[in-house]
């Protein structure tokens, strides 16, 4: 291509090949503008699924930049490549058999302690997650903190792709979150009570009743529903308690 950039366009390099694209596009849309139809490397297009992990460099810079292609706007001179898949084996386990401890996680991911604290993972995270911090939290046994710090992880794999110690950070984080949810947080008491009532068939008569109603009666009851106020009040209860 020998095209000159027009106003409001930029020159980018998709895997080394030059294309001129509008400067308002995300990397994802710029690929499409250039003629690519995605198979891999494109998912939700909304910054949450982690399918479009992308690495790029600006001209003259030594630094490797990272981003999600669907969230990152193109800039002049970007050299761009995607990492649509990275081999990072996930340990398989029966969650009930895994203790919520560092030792149990280490047994599944023995490389955990190889972390040398270089912080490359954090610098490689397109979601600005403190990856090294959550790995440290796992190592010191604070799985709740690891769950909290890693909560926004989209599992794109960029941390793992760049880790010199070859950790699978995002799989470790997933395990830490699941152990936190299943083991470290108290189970919801009100939920257990409600499911016990469901299993005992408590709601069956009222559901059979409402299922048989004609549209006119349904509308009447729908309009008459008592709305719980928006303002938080943990002690609120409806006047009509007959269908609770």
């Amino acid at each position, binding site marked *: 291509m020998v095209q000159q950039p027009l106003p409001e366009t930029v020159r980018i390099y998709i895997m080394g090949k030059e294309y001129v694209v509008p400067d308002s596009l995300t990397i994802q849309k710029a690929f499409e503008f250039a003629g690519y139809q995605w198979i891999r490397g494109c998912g939700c297009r909304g910054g949450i699924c982690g399918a479009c992990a992308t690495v790029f460099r600006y001209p003259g810079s030594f630094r490797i930049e990272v981003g999600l292609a669907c969230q990152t706007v193109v800039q002049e001179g970007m050299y761009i490549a995607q990492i649509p898949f990275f081999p990072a084996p996930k340990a398989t386990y029966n*969650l009930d058999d895994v203790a919520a401890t560092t030792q149990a996680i280490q047994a599944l991911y023995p490389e955990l302690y190889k972390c040398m604290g270089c912080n490359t993972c954090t610098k490689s995270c397109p979601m600005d997650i403190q990856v090294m911090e959550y790995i440290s939290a796992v190592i010191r046994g604070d799985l709740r903190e690891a769950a909290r710090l890693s909560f926004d992880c989209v599992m794109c794999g960029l941390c793992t792709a760049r880790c010199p110690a070859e950790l699978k950070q995002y799989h470790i984080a997933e395990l830490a979150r699941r152990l936190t949810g299943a083991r470290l947080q108290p189970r919801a008491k009100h939920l257990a009570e409600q499911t016990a009532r469901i299993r005992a068939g408590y709601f069956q008569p009222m559901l059979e009743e409402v299922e048989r109603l004609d549209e006119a009666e349904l509308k009447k009851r729908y309009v008459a529903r008592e709305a719980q106020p928006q303002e938080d009040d943990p002690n609120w209860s409806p006047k009509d308690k007959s269908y609770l």
Partner: protein
Amino acid sequence: MGYTRELLELIKKVEATRSARIARARAGQDFPPLSLEGRAERLRFHPDYKAEGRRPLRVGPSKGYAICHEIADLLEAAPLVNPDAVDLRQPDYETDVLVLGGGGAGSSAALLAAKNGARVLLTTKLRHGDANTMMAEGGIQAATQQAWDSPYWHYLDVIGGGHFKNIPELVRTLVSEAPLVIEWLEGLGCLLSKEPDDPQGTLRMIHGGGTSRKRMHFAADITGAEIMRTLRDEVRNQAGKIRVLEFNPAVELILDGAGRCQGAVLLNLETKQLYVVRAKATVLATGGSGRLHIQGFMTTNHYGATADGLVIAYRAGVPVCFLHAVQYHPTGAVYPEQAEGLLITEKIRGYGAHALNVDGEQFVFEREPRDVESACFIRECLEVKKGVPTPAGKWGIWLDSPMIDAMCGAGTVEREFPGKFILFKRYGIDIGKQPMLVYPTLHYQNGGVNYNQRGETNIPGFFAAGEVTGGVHGENRLMGNSLLDVCVFGRIAGESAAAFAREKYAPGEPTLDHVRRFVAERRDAGVEGKTASPILLPDYVSQTVKDKRLPA
């Protein structure tokens, strides 16, 4: 980047009315919700009510049923794969249960089928977990708090939101299974938000549009992603029982001479090889169709939402319902342009943020059911002419997120909506301090294939679950009922399919004769057009490139 100077000027009008609006909200003075008659009047502005937007189907089991052109085009289209080109004699895979789709419904189905003793093959068009489930933000409804709620009230909310057209047995199943699903997710370690430091583990709950009680459970503002990554992790833990094939969408169902489902034909998207799967039972969980951009609307949907499963099921003889009703989410981003169509969770309004016109004034109760809310937004822009003009020449409505920080304390927006906060921060907008600009965006396929409360379709051995189905939501789904739908009916379909494989399966000679019959019916009805379906991938390649391409 951030807002343009013009928009910054207009934001001042939002700020000018904010303190008075907050005072009213604190006094419990909501903008008055519409009556049922008022809703009906406003719904005239909903895109579904445009007569020119739909047409009767000319072929297939629901011939005569009028639905949008974009889906009709695909249901009537010629098959992508010539049935004569497929050799059915030697299957490439054999399994008890074949699950088509790797989103929330497919993953739930696979887990429950495996739990019930079946060998499972899960195939998906993109990666496992690439699905609308991943993108659902706001929450999952379930009547888990007996002090103020029960499945009865959930039932009334669902059926009222669906215009009283929903199929009662499906609604009943949805609401009575809901707390069981929450318990299942809790046991899998899914991090639904709980009250901090509460030894009783109380789940946090808020309102959603059209709910009478607070029963929206959530995982910050990435509820779907948290559910999806948990389910995906668990499916992978079952590697000995569940095999996953990515980038292998189903392109046709396989039936036998007696009309029973015997598996499916898959296409390897990368090598273009066709695979034959012989299965004792098959579950359809392929999701929706937002990427068809119905009536030209932008969409919140996943890249893969192209109605593929709907197409192959219809061709095999499964009728469709409620496809005449398409859901437009009231709040898709319209600014900045790069984020266009992006979902802004209803939970923002669930927290009390107002929707405002160009004068910074309220014009609608912010938690009407989605179709009504969207219709009111469109009316305010196109009829009342009080929309906010965007730099790209579109209209928007302000969503006053800073109200949340003002009412619930500074930092609440950042804490409760971390996903959206970081996203807008990248575009130079602090949504704790500046409102967002939104407009209705294509969000959900309310209808789909006919099925029943056991997940069965009219084809023996063929089950369905999730967005690809129709009936449970009637003509309009409420917020928080799609994540619930995929889990409830995914689990049921998986169980039913495993039971069918074990107890009812009868072998038969595999054929694609139903495809040949469909081609003949199409010809006899005089349907023309070059489109071949399923289309599998949307095509956003620029026209200048297409015009100069080597002809296919």
